[in-house]
């Protein structure tokens, strides 16, 4: 998998397959559509998972599992269904990881074992690469506002946070959000309304 790190940006998985005669035209079309879809959701999905799990690597694992599950089980479904399905899978994965973490926490509380990442690792050169950052002043202000929003979002109940992020951040409509959350549209509206009120109350000074 490390080879992908060095690929040029123009490289595309589907482009690499285009010369392979054994793949049917339908599979190629599906993979092309899936690649576009996954590229469009992966970063937001990561942020949503990170807000729920509060851990980068766990969030990355959750997103990867959701991608694999979508491709394995639902790639034949119409493309319009992928987004709510993907977020439904992601949410299930996040809940699984939270449950597992709770159990692991109870066990680890009795053992003097530390996680490898807490013991310090060599810095990742890609992580150290500069991003297109704004000016330091703007950055500080944005970081403070985002930090406060992140704390407020993390403090929300799971369903409220999910409704808020799917509706406001991911841009799903009420019906798609209901499909992703596995609940009624009325529940989505209630969760969303409560989430907005709670966040407004907590972020009064950042508005």
């Amino acid at each position, binding site marked *: *998998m490390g080879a*992908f*790190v060095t690929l040029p940006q123009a490289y595309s*998985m*589907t482009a690499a*397959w285009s010369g392979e005669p054994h*793949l049917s035209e339908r*599979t190629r079309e*599906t*993979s092309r559509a*899936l*690649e576009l879809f*996954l*590229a469009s959701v*992966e*970063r*937001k999905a*990561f*942020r949503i998972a990170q807000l729920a799990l509060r851990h*980068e690597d766990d969030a*990355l694992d959750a*997103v*990867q599992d959701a*991608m*694999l599950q*979508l*491709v*394995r089980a639902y*790639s034949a479904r119409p493309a319009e269904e992928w987004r709510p399905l993907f977020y439904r899978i992601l949410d299930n994965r996040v809940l699984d990881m939270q449950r597992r973490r709770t159990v692991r926490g109870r066990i680890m509380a009795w053992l003097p074992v530390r996680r490898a990442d807490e013991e310090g690792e060599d810095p*990742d050169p*890609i*992580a*150290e*690469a500069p*991003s*297109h*950052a704004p000016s330091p002043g703007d950055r500080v202000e*944005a970081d403070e*506002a*985002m930090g406060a*929003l*992140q704390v407020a979002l993390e403090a929300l109940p799971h369903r409220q946070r999910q409704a808020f*992020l799917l509706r*406001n*951040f991911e841009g799903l409509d009420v019906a798609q959000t209901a499909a992703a959350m596995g609940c009624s549209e009325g529940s989505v509206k209630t969760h969303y309304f409560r989430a*907005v009120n709670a*966040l*407004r109350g907590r*972020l009064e000074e950042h*508005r």
Partner: protein
Amino acid sequence: MTNERQDFEGHTRKLLEASVDDLDGRIRSRLTQARYRALAELQHPQRASWWQWAPASAVAAVAVLAIALWAGSEYRTSAPVARATTFEDLELLVDNDVFDFVDEAPGADSYEFFEWAAVAADDGVASMGT
């Protein structure tokens, strides 16, 4: 109230989108790898098949092991009984007192008595048949 609310929603959306744009290279790289790994499933779906059976195989192996251990323990518990019986037989054969007891039985000095008893028993069985 509605405008304030919409402003708030717009503001939080911008913050969240900015946080996505600022994701570092390591995370972007790992997301790209995850996407390619998922897409590779379309190309080689059969690759997953061997480990999909792994849990069932593990359960079957554990079941076989449990049966083997159970059968082994059954064998171990029954073997001493068989051995004990064999030793008892040997003791009987070796023990002279047993033959003394036979010698001391009534009529033991006379084989005619046993012959008579055997004939009488055969006759009794034959008469019951008729």
